[in-house]
């Protein structure tokens, strides 16, 4: 199963380039924030690749910081910018998230690690708790960031798909959002299994998540040159 993070990394960084290119073409802070979130996703899977070859404390910390703490929250932050257009609520939340992310960075970098206990033959997800000492605040932040990210990213995609379905417009964006919701749920469920003590699913769930979200993004943006009514809908544009 160790080849799965290689595939996830390639797909995710290709996804990052696609989203960032669209941001360069069209603007939209949500696209930039999705690119940031996906970059964290890719850093997490790249760390899994490195940790399957050799152990490095800094890489393990980057793996935990990006994969377990920041990815979902920053992806969800993009969805918030897409859905919450009025006022400066989205901007305020973004600054709060940036501050929390900085705190998470400091907490993880300063966390003690027991490098001698690491076994490169086993997935990092199976053994990180024995290696990386996480205090209560770190665990709390991890859980809160994941709750926020999952609700906003998955919930936002479901809400967008529902709007398209109710109005019967833009079928490609509707199905794209359904795929994005399913893809975002996949690593969230992998992380949930991890919390329940089941570790084998994490790498596979990350791969499935990256593939589904990428396909969903392509699907959602495929018909973007069509003339559309956008006054009430939000979408992955």
């Amino acid at each position, binding site marked *: 199963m160790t080849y799965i993070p290689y595939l996830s990394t390639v797909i995710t960084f290709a996804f990052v380039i696609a989203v960032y290119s669209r941001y360069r073409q069209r603007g939209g802070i949500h696209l930039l924030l999705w690119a940031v979130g996906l970059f964290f996703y890719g850093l997490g899977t790249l760390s899994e690749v490195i940790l399957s070859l050799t152990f490095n404390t800094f890489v393990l910390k980057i793996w935990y910081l990006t994969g377990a703490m920041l990815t979902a929250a920053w992806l969800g932050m993009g969805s918030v910018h897409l859905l919450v257009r009025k006022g400066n609520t989205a901007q305020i939340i973004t600054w709060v998230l940036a501050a929390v992310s900085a705190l998470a960075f400091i907490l993880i970098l300063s966390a003690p690690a027991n490098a001698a206990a690491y076994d490169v033959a086993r997935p990092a997800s199976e053994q990180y*708790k024995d290696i990386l000492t996480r205090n209560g605040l770190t665990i709390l932040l991890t859980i809160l960031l994941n709750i926020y990210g999952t609700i906003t990213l998955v919930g936002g995609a*479901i809400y967008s*798909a529902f709007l398209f*379905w109710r109005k019967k*417009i833009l079928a490609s964006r509707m199905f794209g959002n359904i795929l994005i919701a399913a893809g975002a*749920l996949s690593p969230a469920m992998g992380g*949930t299994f991890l919390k329940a003590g089941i570790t084998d699913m994490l790498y596979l769930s990350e791969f499935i998540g990256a593939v589904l979200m990428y396909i969903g993004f392509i699907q959602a943006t495929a018909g973007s040159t069509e003339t*559309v009514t*956008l006054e009430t809908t939000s979408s992955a544009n």
Partner: protein
Amino acid sequence: MPETRRSKRFSPSGLTEKLVPVLLVILVLALLGVLVIVGLSLLGITPSA
């Protein structure tokens, strides 16, 4: 100024008519399931948080 562009409407087929609501409900239930387990881990009830 009111939006004047035309909508790209679609007419769902029989399969899509039934499939999409089912998919949306499944996704909502899966989301709730994930949040419940995350909440339980917050309370320290799951084997490992």
